[in-house]
């Protein structure tokens, strides 16, 4: 369990959560990036433009 930093709701985490993974908040729909796993630290996932030629 962790707290959504956007709306404060509890966010359910699966067991094998990984650094860098993006979790959707079930309450407000925000995309949250897992910055650390032990303990879990979440931050709003950055919007990253997808470019065609990299």
């Amino acid at each position, binding site marked *: 369990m962790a707290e959504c930093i956007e709306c404060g709701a509890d966010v359910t985490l699966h067991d094998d959560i*990984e650094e*860098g*993974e*993006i979790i959707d908040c079930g309450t407000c729909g925000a*995309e949250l*990036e897992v910055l650390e796993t032990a303990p879990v630290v979440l931050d709003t*996932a*950055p919007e*990253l433009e*997808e*470019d*065609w*030629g*990299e």
Partner: protein
Amino acid sequence: MTVVVKVGGARAVDPKDALADVSALIDNDEQVVVVHGGSTAVDDTLEALGETPEYVETPSGVVGRFTDERTMEVFSMVLPGKLNTDLVVGLQNEGVDAIGLSGIDGQLLSGSRKSAVRVVEDGKKKIRRGDHSGRIERVNGDLLETLLESGYTPVVTVPMLADDGVAVNSDADRAAAAVAGALSAELVILTDVPGVLADVDDESSVIERVDSSDAYETLTAAAEGFMTRKVMAATEALEDGAESATIASANTEAPISGALGSNGTTIT
């Protein structure tokens, strides 16, 4: 007129005829800038060093290279190192006074860093950080013009210099497009097919001229796979100020002259 020619990259493309053609164009008082890539050569060297090239998939399904610090180092070894040396020696032997440059040199190619990328791994969305990749936003055209006016032929490759002061990878077709735009040049992208094909199974179905928005729509509808990227690079070149952009085969006797003539797909 200045010609910017993008060579190489794919294993199927031998630059020898292109280099002789550069020499012929210069004898004809054209100014030429050569731009090259070499992603497969980077993978070969990574493997020779016992490392595995890493490719990631983006949420929209595009597969691209993830360039960590070590991969970036190998890029520098292979592109400004081995391939620039090979091409410059090849051109010198054709009587062309070539000079190899990367996008770092004189900040030839610079722009924003993209260090984080969204990927999909095992069905999970993730943020991967530490990518050495960037978007070319500025070209030092003065440097190229100084060299061209002094009789030199620049041979240009990535990396580019990102705004955070780090050498990063960028697509070589787009680098050629940015250079052609900055020099208001004619861009020739050499590849291993004769142009953009109306029917991908028929090599004689080359779309020759694209000079209206209707023709451009036909073109983008016909381009598939890697050709989509070449068409997008050609489009960027024109948006940036290039005179024309041609996608043509490297595997003909005078491939650049041919592309400036009637060969390949020319967009204006």
